[in-house]
């Protein structure tokens, strides 16, 4: 183990201070404070419309918060204040009929290292193939994305979020629509990235049993942060009731 979770001086990767977003009458996010340590894997759990995606977009710099600030700690790499981010949007935002292959999608993650020519450089090709191989997608490299199953589509977008060697990964529902074995695979890969390369990972989910309970740290969100801590400690009946309003008997722990 090269990570010390309990060390107070552990490097802070993301520090969110008092972030509010939305109109005063209908806030989407209210007074969010959150510190994420380098190499941590945390899950944002909450119902639809709870602000999970919005918070990820604010961290990614896609949306400017109404108030509050984000700090990315003492960064060594790069000149800008922002870390290299690996991002995975929700599947709903993707046009699955778009004529693009698995390989091409993943290569987009390296768009600024691809040179001027319309075809990919050797470096890009090799890197893309390596990542797809690690994710068990070697046989699908030349496939169109619409020919893939839900789980395979997830793997492709995860590959694009990994391919450029990010320091921070922001994944919007990376397991929704994936079958249980893909879901477990994705979680395993994320743990490896955090443990071996110190990648900080923030993901959103509404899968309590399959995802949240397997994470070391879960942040329950419904406009405000309702609970934050070890999944097994905070995912209690009471907390779930506060988060979701009512308890779906099927999804309770």
């Amino acid at each position: 183990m090269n990570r010390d979770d309990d060390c107070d001086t552990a490097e802070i990767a993301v520090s969110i201070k008092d972030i509010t977003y939305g109109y005063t009458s209908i806030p989407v996010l209210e007074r969010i404070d959150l510190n994420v340590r380098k190499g941590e894997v945390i899950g944002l759990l909450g119902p639809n419309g709870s602000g999970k995606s919005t918070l990820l977009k604010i961290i990614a710099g896609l949306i400017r918060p109404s108030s509050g600030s984000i700090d990315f700690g003492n960064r060594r790499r790069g000149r800008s204040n922002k870390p290299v981010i690996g991002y995975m949007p929700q599947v709903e935002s993707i046009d699955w009929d778009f004529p693009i292959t698995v390989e091409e999608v993943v290569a987009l993650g390296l768009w600024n290292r691809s040179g001027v020519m319309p075809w990919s450089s050797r470096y890009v090709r090799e890197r893309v193939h390596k990542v797809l191989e690690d994710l068990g997608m070697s046989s699908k490299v030349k496939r169109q994305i619409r020919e893939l199953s839900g789980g395979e589509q997830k793997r492709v977008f995860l590959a694009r979020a990994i391919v450029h060697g990010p320091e921070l990964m922001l994944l919007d529902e990376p397991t929704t629509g994936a079958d249980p074995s893909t879901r477990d695979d994705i979680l395993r890969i994320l743990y490896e990235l955090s443990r071996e390369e110190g990648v900080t990972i923030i993901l959103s989910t509404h899968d309590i049993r399959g995802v949240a309970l397997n994470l070391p740290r879960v942040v329950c969100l419904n406009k405000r942060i309702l609970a934050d801590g070890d999944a097994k400690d905070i995912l209690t009946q009471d907390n779930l009731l506060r988060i979701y309003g009512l308890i779906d008997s099927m999804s309770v722990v």
Partner: protein
Amino acid sequence: MIEPNTLLQPFQYEFFIRGMIVAILVGGVNGLLGVYIVLRGMSYIGHGLSHAVFGGAVVSHMLSINMYIGAMLWGLISSIVINRVSRSGKVKADAAIGVISTAGFAIGIFLLSSTRSFTRNFEALLFGNILGITYLDMLAIAVVSIVVLAFFLLLNRMMLFTIFDRETAKVYGVRTDAVDLTFSILLAIVVIASMNAIGVTLLAAAIVAPAISARLLTNNFTKLIMLSTVIGAITAFVGMYLSFLFDSASGATIVLFGAGVFAVVSLYTLLHRVYHRHSHGSVVRHKHMHIHRGEHEHHEHHH
């Protein structure tokens, strides 16, 4: 029986050769840009921009400014306005662009009709005419083709990333707004260089038709770009040739031929699909059901 000599006979005229060169280049660059327009689902931008620049052409004629310079200025302003409006969100982009660009077109028609200066030159601008193509037009489209090709090489990846997944592109450092604006400006330049060959009223179809025909034939992005460029060039070449034979407006002939190509390709893909369904039957159907999006699977797990 038509003598081969009859078919080649027009090539002895300089204006004809000039027209054919312009047609190939115009068809090619429009086919290339058409792919991005079709994939973004923004065909109305081509339609809007081509109509808008007509006003600029007429105004510059009235003020005795070189038509290219006037239309270019007008086109740049139009593309910036169209680009802004399509991002504002409050008014739907297609509606706003419809008004702005048609107003630009209306300015041209208003000035022409009120001063009674509607000439054959302007008819060429509206509908395209091989006789309206000058040496300057040929030079302009040659330069524009080189510029478009250079930008295409430079921006291809950024444009692909932007139209496929804008959100992620932004996170990964692509300046998506700048990409959009550059594309609109390129389109404006191409529209202006295509005016005399195809005519502003018919240009939108000439931009879109090769791309949708090519889209039916391939699922590969790089092949799509190349195929659309080639189909665009061939369509314009044949259309221009036919317009000479029939003594018809070149824009109309090119567009009709392009639509014909699209109809044939559609029929071909339809027959191809029907044939495959019959020969592979249930295997194909089963596969399609399986691949249809992850959400179904997800729902099934929940039930």
